């Protein structure tokens, strides 16, 4: 008599675990996986409960869950767009640079002259100039992402799992900021590589690019761009939370940051020192000739806090009817 093949899977042989859910068949295989589970593999723990975990743990879980969701092609496309904008900005900085006096220390000048590109800041000038566009891109993306949670109804599924709404928002913003920091590193590296290539094409002397002063400038500019784009991201998220409609949030974000602020700026020169989009841009470019750096930074922090409070209050207080 032959020995029965105990490894042959009989789809009808299912056992219920102690929780009643079919998790492993009699052959020890986890359903849907096709691979045998280890003998005596534990059933899912019923009490992996978040209750009582407190807000820090809720923030941590939200952070990890958001990162898990962001592992998708759309995120890579957004990061690629951000890098492409930086690269494009670098290409234009070199291609359109003329032989004027070095005005690299005047960040209000969008494109630097050729001599400025040969200074220690030359490596990052294109990246810095592109931060205006990356910030606006972030604002629109964040507004759309949050508003889409309402549009798709996924916000209610989230809050049924994590009712501490502000903790969830904090975790989400931490995930977005973390990813943004990584994306900006990638954008910077690509922009730097482009700058080296363009410097050769335009015959720019890169001798000062690799000094200690230049490296400090790189670190400073990266942080400025990170802070500014984070503020843009906070503003965009608040916009999405307040408006809750993807189309309207994106429209308001685009109209405000692109034409509206610049129309106001044309009519009122001091607008650069006060309007949030322009203030965030000033931070990214290291300040301006009128207000310096400290003024825009403090005002930018104030705007970011105000946006964060408005968004969090809306999130916490308003009914979820999505």
């Amino acid at each position, binding site marked *: 008599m032959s020995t029965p093949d105990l490894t042959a899977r009989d789809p009808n042989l299912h056992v*219920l*675990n*102690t*929780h*009643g*859910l*079919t*998790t492993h068949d009699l052959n020890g295989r*986890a*359903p*849907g*996986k096709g691979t045998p589970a280890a003998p005596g593999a*534990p*059933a*899912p*723990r*019923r009490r*992996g*409960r*978040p*209750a009582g*975990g407190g807000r820090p*743990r809720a923030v941590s*879980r*939200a952070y*990890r*869950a958001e990162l*898990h*969701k962001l*592992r*998708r*092609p*759309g995120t890579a496309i957004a990061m690629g767009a951000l890098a492409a904008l930086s690269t494009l900005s670098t290409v234009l900085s070199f291609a359109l640079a003329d032989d004027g006096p070095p005005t690299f220390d005047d960040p209000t000048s969008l494109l630097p002259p050729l001599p400025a590109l040969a200074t220690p800041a030359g490596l990052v000038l294109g990246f810095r100039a592109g931060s205006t566009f990356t910030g606006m891109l972030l604002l629109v993306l964040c507004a759309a992402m949050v508003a889409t949670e309402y549009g*798709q*109804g*996924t*916000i*209610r*599924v*989230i*809050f*049924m*799992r*994590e*009712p*501490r709404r502000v903790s*969830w928002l904090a975790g989400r913003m931490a995930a977005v900021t973390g990813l943004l920091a990584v994306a900006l590193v990638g954008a910077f590296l690509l922009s730097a590589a482009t700058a080296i290539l363009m410097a050769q094409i335009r015959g720019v002397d890169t001798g000062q690019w690799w000094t200690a002063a230049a490296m400090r400038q790189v670190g400073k500019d990266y942080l400025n761009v990170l802070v500014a784009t984070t503020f843009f991201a906070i503003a965009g998220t608040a916009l999405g939370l307040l408006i809750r409609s993807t189309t309207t949030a994106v429209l308001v974000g685009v109209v405000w940051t692109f034409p509206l602020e610049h129309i106001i700026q044309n009519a009122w020169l001091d607008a650069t020192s006060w309007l949030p989009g322009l203030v965030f841009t000033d931070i990214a470019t290291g300040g301006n000739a009128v207000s310096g750096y400290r003024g825009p930074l403090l005002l930018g922090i104030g705007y970011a806090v105000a946006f964060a409070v408005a968004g969090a209050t809306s999130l916490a*207080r308003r*009914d*979820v*009817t*999505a």
Partner: protein
Amino acid sequence: MTQRAETPTGHAAGTASLPPPYPLPTATGTRAGPAPAGPAPAGPPAIDVRGLSKRYGRRTVVNDLDLRIPVGAVAGFIGPNGAGKTTTLRMLLGLVRPTTGQGTVLGHPLTDPAGYLPRTGALIENPALYPRLSARRNLEALTILAGRDPAWVDAVLDEVGLAERADDEARSYSLGMKQRLAIAAALLGDPDLLILDEPTNGLDPMGIRLMRDLIRGLAARDGRRRTVLVSSHLLAEVEQICDWIIVVDRGELAYQGPPERLLSAGAPRVTLRPEHARDVGRLADLAAGLGLAVERDGDQLVGLLDPPPAPSADGPDGPAEPMWAALAGLNRAAHAHGITLVEIAPGRVTLEERYTGLVAAAADGARRTGDAS
């Protein structure tokens, strides 16, 4: 021709009087009342909320609703469109802030959803998913967010029959599959309380059957007393699987308690068939004379026996003396008039009929109140 007889009290067939409130233990003890049918109310209710209201401006969506659902019950939540069912469920889930009301869910205050939501699974309205994530990754994100064992993902995917397509993007799913995925999300972590809002929406007949079996199975598995609150328009489904019924209309409670109690309250249904179809009219007159509300339905009479028999101590299926007495009286009268009855068939009123009666009665009441004011 349809003949319709009404009782001297004017009680129209199909309308129902409400049974007395069903007794449930409260934090301060058990209220007195008749012996309960349905789930045994041991311990505090799974859901015990009082005076729940939600107003948007001047519009009242839910008005002073008291809900008491015993632990272990499979409760059907029914009512017409716009009756306030979904708003009520959203309030229980902490998504919508009640205008007034207090109480507990799974022993935690309604004002502290963080206390009870970790033990609650829910599906509200249409399935909400990330379309570009696979089913598995949708569930993994929720598992991480809730701090649960990742092994639940495979378990629930298998439970709803989606294991084979777990790695496909959710946007490629049919409506029924999306609904099943949303139910899988609700099942993550083996909740003590499951709240399902129209869970059979978009499901094919096999999916509906799977859902019915799932709900039945959940309540009965491994000796645990899970509570299921399911809102549905499919009254036949509710009647089959629920041992607790809540009827709301215009945001107000019309009935809550075991279905047997609702079905046995009011008049039971009876079918009468004479030997000759020509006798149907005369038989209807005799029935009307005896106070029986009947309608002609082809060559037979169908109606409700009124006044309603008292609920039997042996339960809804036990003998109900007044009903038999009324039927015996009609049989004797028919025989005396030369009519031979070949069928006297008492039967249960369906939930649909009783529900229709309740809603119609509530509408009448609302209309009268409006007229009076």
